[in-house]
């Protein structure tokens, strides 16, 4: 018998592709439960203060209304802790906003009531009838005006080794005395995730102490834990289902006010309650990439060796939660600078809490760092790729230990060749095509190759299908497909004989989908459980056929309806018998990282090369080429991984050229309220993005050799485009997005 074709690495189609394109895939807002009710949130129209009164009478009288819930009548979940601490002095890392707990207004559009009715239209109509009076207080929503009040995050105060703490190697701010130096400030505005699927939840109290949530979340188990704790329930009494997630980008990494509101509403009306946010509400209460100010000082020798970097950052957070991200992480380890200083600060504003958005802080930081690299290369009159190569790190300069693997130079070469880097001129504005200036730029990205621990379960079904289960979600990268490929190779089964089920907190424990860690973490668990299953099946087979008792695992293979043994044509064990013997029990294993992480620095790397065209009269920017190259270890599925890289690159185009959520500080309200005001790229904004994978296994992250893709797909794209705009025009835009008004 021929060995089955290897599935790992193959560009296999998505296992759920057909369900998605035919509409059979059910998203959180698509579950229809008997006797379901619909909830609509009412948001505060002021930004800070107290609710002095709230009149719900008209809403309650409106047709079909079942309940109007406010802080005055909401049942208090027994495990809920009050929101945050003293908002004027964030002393702690705070806690999430808890709805309907008090009369305090912490940000504009904060939910102050939820209206529940027997149809969505009636709930929406009645929501308009809720009238609130406020005792307004002066609010702060402007980062620039609040930079002076920025503070060191509590976690850094408590732990000087925290990644958010000030970092130092060599001399402090040594760039100031450098012979050749630059100092520049960079700003990114608030950006909002805006996945196509809106945040939605259907909450169903199946019994007074049993709660089922059909919820848009990136972590079924994290959501289960949060709401079990809130309601004082054992975790096993809460079930969270998120089979399909229509994009998230970090937006569903947190438990948000609308989820609590739906659960409260379902409790009050004693019916399943569905609540879907509006696009407008997606701006205000479910996180965003925080508006961030950064400053970089850099010095170098005339021959292009960096002597010092200082990188400072102030990001916005809310008054009730300290949101911290690794904005300065890449600066500490990417280039060989003997002197390096970082300072990370937060400014608390009267806004909803931010949350990680794809690439998260690293993408913000890379905009500043990789722009500054380009600025310094220009000052030195050195090609920016050559400048990066002169400062390349062969081991981690932050932790002074080797990389587990690093093939970034290979990425540079591949990308430069594909974009036509040799056409790039050192002098900006040198290349034109008619009315269009042409420029080339590059930007580097990196993200930790994280691996956590996870479980997976496996079970043989009578028809010879192997059922695998994991609580992990698939928010779009193709997790289900990658796991199916890993299982197929491990078991020696065709993918059609693997059924991988995910997105249910009752399944085997898995971490939240995020931080580019899922294949790294769940992949090994799937591989190990498949090996364990095969071993278990061999053991079961041995009870009726001695030949299996001494057989090696690799000699056991799956035929149509029975197991066979290599070199023994009479040995067979039927699936029906094996299933009966197993008694319907699944095999579950837990897979944990080894201790290698202590010895090595583990990172994925990427570099993005952009060719842009800038119109000489209108200042419009078009990205005409975008090449994304990744050192992400072994690629499990070239097609879904390539797709993920392209999606991340499109996100980077949005970040570079158009995404910008704007608050009118007089009111503390967003003036960008929908996708007509808040632009994300359309197809015409994106060229045919070319992806290159080094596809070399990492020996240490896990046995599969993977390192992770999700974040590095976006990190470095925005500076590549900004640098290309500079090369095209000689105009350095240090505040994103690069809209025509900044170039004309």
């Amino acid at each position, binding site marked *: 018998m021929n060995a089955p074709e290897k599935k790992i690495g193959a560009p296999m189609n998505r296992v759920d592709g057909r369900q998605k394109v035919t509409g059979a895939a059910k998203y959180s807002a698509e579950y229809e439960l008997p006797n379901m009710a619909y909830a609509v949130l009412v948001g505060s129209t002021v930004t800070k203060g107290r609710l002095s009164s709230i009149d719900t009478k008209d809403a309650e009288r409106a047709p079909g209304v079942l309940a109007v819930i406010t802080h005055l009548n909401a049942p208090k979940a027994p495990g809920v802790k009050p929101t945050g601490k003293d908002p004027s002095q964030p002393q702690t890392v705070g806690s999430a906003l808890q709805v309907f707990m008090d009369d305090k207004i912490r940000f504009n559009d904060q939910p102050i009531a939820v209206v529940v009715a027997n149809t969505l239209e009636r709930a929406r109509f009645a929501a308009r009838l809720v009238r609130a009076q406020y005792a307004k207080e002066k609010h702060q929503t402007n980062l620039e005006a609040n930079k002076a009040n920025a503070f060191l995050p509590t976690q850094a105060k408590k732990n000087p080794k925290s990644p958010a703490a000030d970092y130092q190697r060599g001399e402090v701010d040594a760039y100031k005395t450098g012979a050749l130096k630059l100092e520049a400030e960079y700003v990114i505005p608030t950006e909002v995730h805006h996945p196509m699927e809106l945040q939605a939840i259907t909450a169903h109290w199946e019994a007074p102490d049993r709660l089922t949530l059909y919820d848009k979340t990136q972590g079924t188990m994290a959501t289960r834990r949060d709401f079990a704790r809130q309601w004082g329930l054992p975790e096993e009494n809460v079930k969270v289902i998120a089979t399909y997630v229509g994009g998230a980008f970090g937006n569903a990494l947190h438990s948000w006010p609308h989820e609590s509101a739906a659960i409260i509403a379902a409790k009050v009306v004693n019916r399943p309650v569905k609540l879907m946010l509006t696009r407008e509400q997606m701006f205000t209460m479910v996180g965003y990439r925080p508006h961030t100010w950064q400053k970089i000082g850099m010095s170098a020798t005339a021959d292009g060796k960096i002597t010092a970097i200082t990188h400072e950052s102030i990001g916005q957070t809310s008054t009730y939660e300290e949101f911290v991200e690794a904005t300065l992480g890449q600066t500490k380890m990417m280039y060989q600078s003997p002197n390096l200083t970082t300072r990370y600060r937060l400014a608390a504003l009267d806004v909803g809490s931010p949350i990680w958005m794809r690439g998260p802080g690293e993408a913000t930081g890379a905009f500043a760092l990789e722009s500054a690299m380009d600025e310094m290369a220009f000052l030195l009159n050195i090609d920016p790729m050559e400048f990066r190569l002169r400062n390349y790190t062969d081991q981690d300069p932050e932790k002074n230990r080797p990389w587990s693997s690093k093939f970034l130079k290979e990425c540079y070469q591949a990308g430069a060749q594909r974009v036509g880097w040799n056409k790039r001129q050192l002098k900006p504005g040198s290349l034109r095509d008619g009315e269009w200036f042409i420029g080339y730029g590059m930007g580097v990205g990196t993200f930790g190759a994280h691996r956590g621990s996870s479980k997976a379960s496996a079970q043989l079904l009578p028809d010879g299908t192997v059922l695998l289960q994991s609580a992990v979600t698939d928010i779009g990268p193709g997790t289900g497909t990658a796991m199916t490929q890993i299982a197929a190779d491990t078991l020696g089964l065709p993918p059609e004989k693997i059924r991988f089920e995910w997105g249910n907190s009752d399944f085997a424990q898995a971490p939240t989908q995020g931080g580019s860690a899922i294949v790294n973490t769940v992949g090994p668990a799937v591989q190990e459980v498949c090996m364990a299953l095969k071993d278990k099946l061999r053991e079961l087979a041995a009870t009726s056929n001695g030949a299996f008792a001494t057989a090696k695992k690799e000699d056991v293979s799956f035929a149509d309806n029975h197991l066979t043994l290599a070199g023994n044509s009479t040995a067979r064990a039927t699936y029906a018998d094996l299933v009966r013997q197993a008694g319907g029990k699944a095999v579950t294993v837990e897979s944990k990282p080894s201790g290698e992480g202590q010895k090595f620095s583990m990172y994925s790397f990427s570099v993005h090369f952009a060719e842009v065209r800038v119109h000489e*009269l209108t200042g419009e920017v078009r990205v005409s080429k975008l090449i994304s190259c990744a050192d992400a270890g072994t690629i499990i599925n070239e097609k879904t991984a390539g797709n993920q890289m392209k999606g991340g690159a499109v996100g980077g185009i949005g970040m570079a050229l158009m995404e910008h959520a704007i608050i009118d500080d007089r009111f503390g309200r967003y003036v960008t309220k929908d996708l*007509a*005001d808040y632009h994300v790229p*359309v197809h015409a904004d994106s060229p045919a993005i070319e992806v290159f994978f080094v596809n070399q296994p990492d020996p240490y992250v896990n046995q599969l050799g993977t390192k992770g893709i999700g974040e590095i797909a976006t990190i470095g794209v925005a500076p590549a485009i900004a640098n290309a705009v500079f090369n095209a025009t000689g105009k350095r835009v240090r505040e994103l997005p690069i809209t025509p008004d900044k170039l004309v």
Partner: protein
Amino acid sequence: MNQFQYVRPTKPQAAIDAVAKDANARFIAGGTNLVDLMKRGVMTPQKLVDINRLDFRKIERQNNALRIGALALNSTVADDKQVRERQPLLALALNAGASPQLRNMATVGGNMLQRTRCAYFYDVTMPCNKRQPGTGCGALEGVNRMHAIFGFSDKCIAVHPSDMSVALVALDATVQVSGPKGNRSIPFADFHRLPGDTPEKDTNLEPGELITAVDVPDNPFTKHVHYQKVRERASYAFALLSVAAALDIDNGGTIKAARLAMGGVAHKPWRLTAAEQVLVGKPATEESFRQAATVAMQGAKAFKYNEYKLRLGPNAIVQALKTAAAA
């Protein structure tokens, strides 16, 4: 959304009567703007009079003009052979607007009547004289990067968002309306209003008046035309500003006639007649275009965040004229 009645008359007079007699009634055709406004509570009609059953969809040539029915879809008009041959500027402007899905729903009459996209108009908690007279203009000292540089008042600095209307004003179109007092024609340039003290009124339509058609007279602008729309992404975005340019150039390269209008700069599509006059008799060169652009921008005044329009405006005019001349 508020509760409302819905009627679908089959005779124009019934539709006109339904709206003329009820101050809270509104016509609805494609609904691509009105439904959004209703969802947000910006408009709260008590009755919707659906006019889609009326027979105003034809595009036909009569009296040396193209008569385009008010209910003709934007996509139909943009693809119509006669429009593309006789009024290519109109087709270009239509295709620059919205998305294919929206153009498949939106009608010509509705396109003219779309409301401003000013964020303060759309948010019922913010001040806006257009939505609620007397509350003030939120944009005047607010986030006004999309706002007017011509013809504004201290009551309103919003701009009209239509692309199609910019071409129609350049092409000297006429709006045919039917109302309680009978039929009348309104020159396109007089159809929309400047805000003055009554920004709540976008147009000079009388209550109950229904647009039945728009007439676009024959013209020599069948070749050298261009619609330059500057926006923040390549497609599906409202204009930062736009320019409709049409030239008639003789064999010697001299401009015999010119039409020029801008969008995204005023409360109405902004015809640039003085700049047109500068062009007539001049050679079709960048220098002439720059002169016209300078004249076009006279009187422009910017606010805190839209100062770039003073630089972008003349550039876009030059670019539009250059492209038109080269077409």
